[in-house]
Each structure stands twice: as structure tokens, then as C-alpha cells.
């Protein structure tokens, strides 16, 4: 029956399939890495989340069922407190970081899209920090924001202003981490916006200019609508990247003050690597993944609706 359907509906496809293994060879390199570094770890993570799993104690790995998940939802446990506090911290960072990461990148992209001398140099300069590792970027900003002997406080002192405990207080610690993150990652969003800007036909702007639209009106009535799909993409990946914040607080604040910058990935790191509770860490990761999927779906829904209306 199936054969008949195939024969009847798609002889061309069948012929194409027969024509060889070549298409599969093309996707083979990616498949290997996808299977080895994404698919396999994901399913293995699902598997170990059902165990009390210490990678250094293969002889002690009791099956605990959904206990690792239940702990996170039982208000009397230490895990409940740790997990939801880190989640709330991560949420705070999302609020602090996503808007500037998108808006500043968009403005930068518009500026870098103009026609002037040295444009390529500026494009390179703004993208350059993104090439650094998180460690280098974080240590640089740690040296700037340090309470004692930090560059920023040094200059504040010279100017005669009071010094600020940038990394030891709230919300200064979030502000510091956000600034470091913007400096480090803004190049990526900017480059994507820049590519999208260049796709917008110049004839639209010319027509608008003839109709007497100001540059601001052009920006809101041409640029933004034309870039809607790219905006959704950038907002979504920025949210995911911000939700995965780890290196900056690990190096700059060690999760402090009083665990306020201990993000969910930081928590997962402490549970899995620090305490050898890989099963629990895997369960927390999967819960985070589910939440991020949900967030992404909401994103597309919200932006999709405005497009239709």
C-alpha cells in the first residue's frame, strides 16, 4: 500500500532518492556534531535526571524516579529555595539586559549603516569584543568595577566623587554585569540587525522622503516593520542568551551579594560540578529548557499577533 502511494504520488522524489547518498553526505558533518553534542547529551540528561548521579561514583547511582523534579516543586526543600531564587535572579537579569541589548544594538546598526568614512573600521570595533571569551571580558570588567583598586572607582576618587561598591550591592551588581554583557555581546545583535537593514530596499526610503517623512518617521514606519521577523529572532536569542548567564557573575561577583546574582545556570553548575549531584542538575536543566521553550513560543505569539493586527 505504502509503495503504491509513493509510486503514485511522487515518482520524481523516488528517482531523486535513488540518485544517491550525496545529500546525506552533505548533512553528515553537521549530523555527527548534532548527534554527539546536542541530541545524545539531551537524552542522556533526561536519563540521568531520574538518578542520583555522581559521575565519579559509578557504583553509587540509585534510581530516584522523578524525585529530582519533585524536590524543586516542594516548598520545604533546600532545592526549592535554591532553584526558584536562582530563577528569580535570572528573571531580573532578563529585565535588566534584554531591552538594552536589543535597543542599543538596533541604534548601533542604524548608525553603522550610514555612509561615512571609516564605517568598516567602526563596524569592526563594535564587533571585536564579541570575539573575546567570557573569561577575558569578565576579568576586564572586574578590574574596572572592583570596589578597591578598580579603575572606575579610581577615577571617581580623582574627580572627587564618592566611590561605589559596584559588585557588592544591589542593584549596582546587576548594572555592572549588564554593562559588561552589553559591551561584550552587543556586536552579535548589531551584525544581525545590520544585515537586515541592508535588505530593506532603498526605494522605500526614497518614496517616503518624497512624501515628506522625517528620518524618525522613516525609522518607525519603514525600518521597524521591515525588520519585524529579525527583531523577533534577535529578541528570542537574546532572551535565551541572557537566561544562560553564568560566566560574568561567576567571575565578577561569585554570585553575590548574598546569592543575588546567582543565576540558574550558576546553580546548575554548583549542583552538578560542585556537589556531584548531576541528576539534580540535569533535572534543573530540563526544567529550564522547558521554560525557555515556553518563553520562545510566547515571543512568537505576541509579535506574530501585532503583525496581523
Amino acid at each position, binding site marked *: 500500500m505504502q509503495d503504491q502511494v509513493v509510486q503514485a504520488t511522487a515518482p520524481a522524489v523516488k528517482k531523486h532518492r535513488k540518485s544517491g547518498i550525496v545529500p546525506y553526505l552533505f548533512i553528515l558533518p553537521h549530523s*555527527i556534531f548534532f548527534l554527539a553534542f546536542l541530541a545524545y547529551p539531551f537524552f542522556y540528561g533526561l536519563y540521568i535526571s531520574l538518578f542520583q548521579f555522581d*559521575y*565519579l561514583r559509578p557504583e553509587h547511582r540509585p534510581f530516584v524516579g522523578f524525585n529530582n523534579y519533585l524536590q524543586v516543586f516542594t516548598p520545604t526543600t*533546600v532545592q526549592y529555595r535554591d532553584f526558584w531564587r536562582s530563577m528569580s535572579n535570572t528573571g531580573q537579569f532578563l529585565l535588566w539586559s534584554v531591552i538594552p541589548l536589543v535597543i542599543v544594538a538596533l541604534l548601533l546598526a542604524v548608525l553603522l549603516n550610514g555612509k561615512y568614512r571609516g564605517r568598516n573600521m567602526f563596524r569592526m570595533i563594535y564587533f571585536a569584543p564579541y570575539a573575546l571569551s567570557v573569561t577575558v571580558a569578565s576579568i576586564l570588567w572586574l578590574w574596572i568595577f572592583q*570596589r*578597591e583598586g578598580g579603575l572606575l572607582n579610581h577615577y571617581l576618587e580623582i574627580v572627587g566623587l564618592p566611590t561605589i561598591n559596584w559588585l*557588592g550591592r544591589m542593584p549596582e551588581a546587576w548594572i555592572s554585569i549588564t554593562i559588561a554583557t552589553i559591551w561584550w555581546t552587543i556586536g552579535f545583535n548589531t551584525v544581525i540587525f545590520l544585515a537586515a537593514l541592508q535588505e530593506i530596499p532603498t526605494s522605500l526610503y526614497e518614496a517616503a522622503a518624497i512624501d515628506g517623512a522625517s528620518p524618525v518617521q522613516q525609522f518607525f514606519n519603514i525600518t521597524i516593520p521591515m525588520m519585524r521577523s529579525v527583531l523577533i529572532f534577535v529578541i528570542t536569542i537574546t532572551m535565551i542568551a541572557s537566561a544562560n548567564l553564568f560566566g560574568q557573575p561567576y567571575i565578577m561577583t561569585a554570585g553575590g551579594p548574598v546569592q543575588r546574582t546567582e543565576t540558574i545556570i550558576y546553580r546548575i553548575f554548583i549542583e552538578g560540578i*560542585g*556537589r*556531584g549531584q548531576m541528576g539534580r542538575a540535569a533535572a534543573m536543566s530540563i526544567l529550564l529548557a522547558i521554560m525557555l521553550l515556553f518563553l520562545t513560543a510566547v515571543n512568537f505569539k505576541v509579535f506574530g499577533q501585532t503583525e496581523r493586527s
Partner: protein
Amino acid sequence: MKKIISNLVPVLILLSLILSACASGGATQAPTQAAAETPTGQATSPTTAPEAAAGTCNSKAQGQSIEMWSPLTGPDGDEMSTLADRFSKENTYGIKVTHVAQPDYITKLEAAAAAGGLPAMTVVRAINVGQEAERNVLKPMTSEVMTVLGTNIGSDFPDQLWKVGEYKGQHYSFPLDTHALVMYYNKDMFKAAGMAEPGPEPWTKTQFEDAIAKLSASGVKPIAIGTAFQAATLFQSLIVQFGGSLTNPEGTKATYNSDAGVKALEYIKNLRDKYSPDISGAGDPEANAYKQGQAAIMIHGPWHISDIVKLSFAGFAPFPTIGDKPAVWAGSHQLGLTSDDPAKQAAAMCWIAWLSQHSIDWAKAGQIPARTSVRTDPKLAEVAAPIAAVIKNADHAIMLPQVAALEGALWDQFGPVVDGYLTGEVTNLKTALDEAAARSQQTMDENAATYK
């Protein structure tokens, strides 16, 4: 033909992947095999080894090159590397020791254990011994490999320092030093306030409070108290001085929510609010405040000695006794084996024996030598004057019992309460401590079940 080739390509790629995986697996196995062969190749006489006297290394150690990892990333690490080089040159067995210091050394050790790339041995913080023994990173020190250290070696150490290397009735580590909190003071500020410098005995409560008052009256900030690590160790010292403790002696019950705990924190907060510059956060800002002359007294770990000793105004004294009895938070660097290979173990033990005998030189790195015979050596004052000045600390050192993952279970919960209380976020201290202790207890019970 073309089809055959195109079909072959993925197979070839797969094959090459499998082969390369095998090759790397083989590479890691090769050294162990080679090492295992050496002793038999040299035909060591089994009769000499067990009867070897102290200081005579097991001949299996002959010609071994071993690596020692450590968390000693400061100037103390350079000192350790110098000692390792000296031993490598001096020993007659051709043993070569390489010292590798790294931050996050525990994480690195665990990763190395998972990947099968552990060094021969490591410097391990006493607090980590139990968990690393459970997690198969540290290997037991059998009485056989310990013969090189000499008979009855344990009696040359304070009981607590020796016992902390024991876990579940088995020896896992050998004490190198102890690091108790030191009271750093500013000689110039003391002089300006018309005060005598502290002596080798810990200050009494009266002496301490008198000094704070006089320093304050002289117009300087008397003491630098921050949060995080410093506050947590002050708390651990004072709670014992006031008659309490973090846990019961077995390390199975969290007891820091006692009246002594509340009293200790109230005392620290009062000092901090009235007499300290406003500092908080990680990275030891209180040490920087002292170095920059912003406070006259600063209590912190001895690892700051090698840096602070360069300052002209630096003075060193033991931790004061503010409560009913002397007690001071302390840790200990211990030496542990991370290899099962008998030849590597023999070489490591040979080096450990030498290092322990030369631990007076280790005092230069700002650590109090663990051995009683070295601590009471009159030469210590010449070699390391600051250490000699704070040596009384060693008699009152308090450490947690050797229970796997105990420190994390306690600090993770009381640490935020200590910081929160000092910075004014926690107002109902007793309730906060009760809740924290309950959470510590939960983790301790869970650990007990995990590592039973």
C-alpha cells in the same frame, strides 16, 4: 564504481573516528603500563621495602617523574615550586616533582578523575578530604606506603590536624600546615594612639576592646570587617569562643543557631557598624582597606602575610580571645595521593617525607607548619618571624570534623544569613539562623545518605 566510493566515504569517516578514539584510549593506558613494568624490570628486592627506616624511600620510587597539583596560586605556590625543584635536585632516587598550582583545583581534579588523567598527588584542603575520598579522587594512604614517614609519625602533630586526614577509619591525607586567622595590625596607628603592640599571647577581651576604643579615639577606623569569607570565619571563631559550635562533635547535627551563634554575630555586627569602614563583597576588600591604611586592625587568613609583610607598618598577632575560651577558625593544607600506581605512590611519599622534614621552609610561605617539632623549633623566628608571632593560634585552631561535603552544607546556609545580617537585610537573626540550620540539617542528612 562511483556508487561504491560514495557509499564508502561515510564508512571511512566513521572508521577513522573510531580508530582515533581507540588511539587516544591507548595513549592514556601506555604510561601506566610502562610504570608498572619499571619496578619489576629493576628487580626490586621485596625484603628491603617494609623494613625501610624513616627517610629511606621505597626503591620503587626510583626514577619516577610525578606531578603534584595544588590550590596554591599565590606567592605560597612559588615557594612550593621552589621546594619541589630543590627536592628534585637533592634526592638520590632520581625522583622529579613538578608542582602545578591552579584555581578551582578541586573541579580540575574531579574532571581529571573522570577523564583518567589524575596527577600522582595533590595538595588538598582538609575540608575536602572526605568528599574526594568518596568520589575516588583521593586514594587511601596505606600503612605500607606510610612507612617512609617513620614510625609513630602521628604523634608529632596536634591530634586534630592528624585526625582530619582520616576518613571512615582510613588515612587519606598527611598534614602539611595549618592556617588559622591572623590579627594584622598597623604599628604606626598603634603608636599614634599611644598603645603597646600585642605580644605572642592572644589578646583578652579587655585588651581588645580597650584597643578598639583607643584607636577610635585617635581618629582612625579601628578595624576592617567585611562580609563573605572573612565574616564567615569570624563567626566560626567567635561561636566557639562563646561556648557554641557549628555542629555536634560527629558533624551530623547543625547547631549554629544557638545563643552563642546569635551572640557571636551580634558582636561582629556591633564592631562592624561602629568601628569599621563600610566594606563588603567577595575578593577580600577588608585586606585592601588594611593595606591602604584605612583601618588599624584586620583579621584574615595567613595567606595575606607574604604580601602584607612588605608593608612597613605591618604587625602580626594571634586571634584575640573575646569570648570565654580561645578558639580560632583554621584550615589545613594536606598532602594526598591521587594515583593507584605503587611506583608513583612511593615517589610521592618519598617527597612528602622530605617536604614534611623541611616544613620550616614552608613557613616562609605564610603557613604554620603542621609538625609540632617544627613549630617549636627556635629557628622558626629567624626563618619566618610573622609566623612565629602568631604561632599560638595553632593551639586553639578549630576545624570541622571530617564528614564528606560538610562545609558546603553549613556555609551555603549560614553564609547568606551572616552577610544579610551584617548588611542589614536580615533583621530577625534568631529566626534566620533557625531556618538556615534546618536547611543545613536537610543537606547534611542527604549527604549522610549519599555517602553512607
